């Protein structure tokens, strides 16, 4: 359904995101995990043409055969919301502070339909109910600042799924929600994906959530996919050193055997910090922070090494048959 | 953070001329030209601004010997414009500088004062800013008679709340910094801190504001002389020249064009200069403009 090929996003000449190939089929749910600044938001924003003005996008993003990059704005606007929905980050800033919520949700509904007011209002209430917001009358009449962050985020989710899109891009869509509500929202998204064959690109740094919702996960570092594969396979048996470090750093309590098998004797964090744009080392972008870098890592690692549905681009990956040695 | 500041200072001192903002250059040229003309007028003008020369009146622009033509008394328009420049600059510079001094002192005082004083003065300043300068000028003119004195005094009164307002905001911000607290803890007195720490940090704001105020003063001076409340004859003023040209609209319309253009260029010059200074002195404030 969605095919990304050779996507390259640059800002001021510096490479911010580079995806050689990524595909999502109908009803498939893919997670995108990575630290802040890893470029995951840039990748998903480019799909809809909502990247910052200073960013240049080249490559190909085909949606049901239609090339999205360079598509005239009017056509792109039809696809946005109608066929591809977006739940943006930071709910507090993503709603118009001077417009009532009801009207904002109704906008999402009516932009892609010719329904009359009554139908639209009914759909708005239906959506409010779907995202588990109580007291729809109050919500419809309220302004964004009168809602809590979590409520705002649910409104944004409601707007994104309003037209039953074929693909939903959720950028940190559940971070502001407390655990019970989060669970319900995730169940809702899962249901939509399964019943309506809605594809899902779920950007998050919460691995537990990603494991729950997604079938596959891509680990992003420095704007590149460093590892990709079935969610359990990647999280329990990561091959790329960065994935391993990220997952380890994220685990508070071991959830299964694989977690237990990790050495959690000390609180791990990844050495160093994400370099600024334009300051990545050549070759493997992670090599300066990696405890297992070898000489091969200095070379450009373009193609991903295949390993039965589980891809990565590490020159010194973790193997689960034997141990691999640290080089420093 | 410190490195950033140091670096930006180093870069700035080596800024090439071509990297200065365009507004600054254009504004600077216009204003510089204006000042030169005004200063020159003390020493030389093409013709004597006062003597009448009725035989040569209403000459059009480009006449021989009279670059911009003559007015209804036969006086050379160019000379009148030059003298008008002198008057405009005189009024605007004097009134702006004096009001800035008073307003800055007032603003500094209020910024360092307690919450109650801040509240009352802020409200008073808000009201003061809303009162049109022309109104003040007319009140003064009723009291002490029309003329430049009334104009200058009125503009000063009008500008004091404006300058105070411009100063209070940034001054309060600077005063909340840690190093100010340290200075006080070190034993420095209030006014020492205000002058040596606060003032230098807000000086760029004041300079930019001064430029804008110069522009506003020129406009109001012209308006006042147009109404007859400002500079009186025989002092030349752009506004009054326009007023005299009004009944001659049909005979010599060009008399109306030149003084107006002079006003536009002078005001534009100061406005652009202010914009340019703001862009140059405080690059953080300027977004994508």
């Amino acid at each position: 359904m969605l095919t990304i090929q050779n996507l390259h996003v640059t800002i001021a000449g510096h490479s911010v995101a580079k995806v050689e190939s990524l595909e999502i089929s109908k009803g498939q749910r893919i997670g995108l995990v990575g630290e802040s600044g890893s470029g995951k938001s840039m990748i998903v924003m480019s799909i809809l043409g909502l990247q910052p003005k200073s960013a240049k996008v080249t490559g190909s993003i085909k949606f049901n055969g239609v090339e999205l990059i360079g598509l005239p704005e009017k056509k792109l606007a039809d696809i946005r919301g109608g066929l591809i929905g977006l739940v943006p980050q930071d709910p507090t800033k993503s709603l118009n502070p001077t417009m009532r919520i009801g009207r904002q949700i109704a906008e999402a509904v009516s932009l892609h339909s010719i329904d009359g007011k009554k139908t639209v209002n009914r759909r708005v209430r239906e959506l409010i109910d779907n995202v588990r917001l109580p007291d729809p009358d109050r919500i419809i009449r309220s302004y964004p600042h009168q809602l809590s962050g979590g409520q705002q985020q649910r409104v944004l989710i409601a707007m994104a799924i309003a037209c039953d899109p074929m693909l939903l891009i959720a950028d940190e869509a559940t971070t502001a929600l407390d655990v019970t509500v989060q669970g319900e929202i995730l169940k809702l998204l899962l249901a939509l994906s399964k019943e309506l064959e809605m594809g899902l690109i779920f950007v998050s740094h919460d691995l537990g959530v990603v494991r729950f919702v997604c079938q596959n996960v891509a680990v992003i570092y420095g704007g590149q996919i460093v590892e990709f594969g079935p969610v359990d396979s990647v999280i329990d048996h990561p091959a790329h050193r960065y994935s391993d470090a990220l997952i380890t750093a994220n685990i508070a309590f071991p959830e299964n055997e694989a977690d237990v098998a990790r050495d959690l004797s000390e609180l791990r964090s990844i050495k160093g910090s994400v370099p600024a744009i334009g300051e990545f080392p050549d070759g493997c972008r992670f090599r300066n922070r990696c405890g297992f870098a070898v000489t091969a890592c200095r070379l450009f690692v373009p193609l991903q090494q295949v390993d039965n549905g589980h891809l990565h681009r590490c020159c010194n990956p973790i193997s689960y048959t034997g141990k691999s040695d640290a080089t420093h | 953070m410190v490195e950033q500041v140091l670096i930006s200072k180093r870069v700035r001192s080596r800024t090439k001329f071509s990297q200065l903002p365009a507004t600054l250059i254009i504004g600077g040229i216009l204003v510089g030209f204006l000042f030169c003309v005004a200063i020159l007028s003390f020493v030389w003008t093409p013709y004597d601004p006062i003597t009448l020369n009725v035989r040569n009146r209403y000459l059009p622009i480009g006449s021989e010997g009279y670059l911009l033509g003559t007015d209804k008394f036969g006086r050379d328009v160019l000379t009148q414009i030059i003298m008008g420049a002198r008057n405009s600059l005189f009024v605007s510079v004097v009134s702006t500088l004096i009001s800035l001094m008073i307003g800055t002192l007032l603003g500094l005082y209020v910024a360092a004062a307690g919450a109650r004083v801040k509240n009352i003065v802020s409200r008073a300043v808000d009201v003061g800013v809303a009162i049109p300068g022309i109104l003040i000028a007319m009140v003064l003119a009723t009291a002490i008679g029309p003329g430049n004195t009334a104009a200058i005094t009125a503009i000063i009164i009008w500008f004091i709340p404006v300058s105070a307002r411009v100063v209070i905001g940034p001054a309060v911000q600077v005063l909340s910094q840690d190093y100010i607290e340290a200075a006080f803890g070190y034993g420095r007195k209030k006014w020492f801190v205000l002058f040596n720490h606060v003032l230098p940090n807000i000086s760029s704001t004041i300079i930019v504001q001064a430029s804008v105020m110069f522009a506003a003063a020129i406009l109001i001076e012209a308006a006042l002389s147009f109404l007859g409340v400002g500079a009186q004859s025989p002092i030349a003023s752009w506004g009054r020249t326009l007023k005299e040209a009004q009944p001659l609209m049909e005979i010599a319309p060009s008399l109306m064009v030149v003084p107006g253009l002079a006003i536009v260029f002078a005001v534009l010059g100061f406005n652009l200069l202010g914009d340019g200074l703001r862009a140059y002195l405080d690059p953080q404030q300027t977004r994508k403009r």
Partner: protein
Amino acid sequence: MTQETKSVGPIQSAPRRFFRSQKVRQVKGFITQGVVLLISALMGSLVVFALLRLLGGDVAYILLGMEATQEQVNMLRAELGLDRAWFVQYFDWIKGFFTGDLGTSFSGSYEIFDQIGKRLIPTLLLAFGSLFVSIFLALILGTYAALNVDNAKGIATDIVSQIGTAIPAFWAGLILVVVFAVSLGWFPAGGYIPIQEDFWGSLRSIFLPIVALSLGITSVTTRFVRSAMLDVLNEDYIRTAMAKGRTRKRAVIIHGLRNASIPVVTVGALQLGNLLAGTIVIESVFVIPGLGQLLLTAVNGREVIVVQSVVLVILLIILVMNFLLDIAYGLLDPRIRDKRNGTNNG
């Protein structure tokens, strides 16, 4: 991470009671505002009065000229009521102002309150007309400039608005008269036809003055709208609207305009002084029988009471306009509304 507790149930009836007390609070707020307005006006009147009395030499002396004898001066002072204690003069004046009796001018040729009343409408027409025209045009031009900030059209608009702020209103008026009234004859060169007499003629007579006055105000306001719009353009909610399916332009107009208008209203309030100042000058250019003309003649004739009164009226006009803009601000921004009413929920 915010906790979300939604309590449903017994709180249902609270909103009704709540809204009623909210209305009461709103009305109270209005009344307080009105009172503050009056007090500001009175303080202003005091200042004006004081300025005139303290600085104004001896009006009677000036009116009679240098050769007047002390006796003549004293007589005139008594006649004009200038020999009374100043607070008596002040209260008398204020009383007269609000009861409609300000006496006759020093020159004796007109009833002061009467003249003010007659001239109020043309001035208000000019001032309010220009305000609306300027705000309307500024919103359009400013949005256009912001949407086109990186191409030639936007830069051109920027330059034009920059020049516009430098053009004095009275000069614009003169040029407009020369071109459109004297040469082309489309509009009258001056004078004012009251609305009651001839609707279209009245509009024609007020058209050029409003254009002249609006030029400067529109330019300044346009620059502010452009700046506010540029801020809005970068806001996330514009991106959300685009994600829903709007094109950038429509997203900006539908969502951005209202948000960008908020700082514009604040700026409009600051422009009121310029607006009224310009009104006075434009009345002079187009010979419109408004308060400005009255003020001018009064200044020349040292008519202290007239000047006081007209200045007070103009101050009141400015304060009222300020008040109205304040209301508009509350209408535009629901966050302020809640803050003012103390109903900050959420």
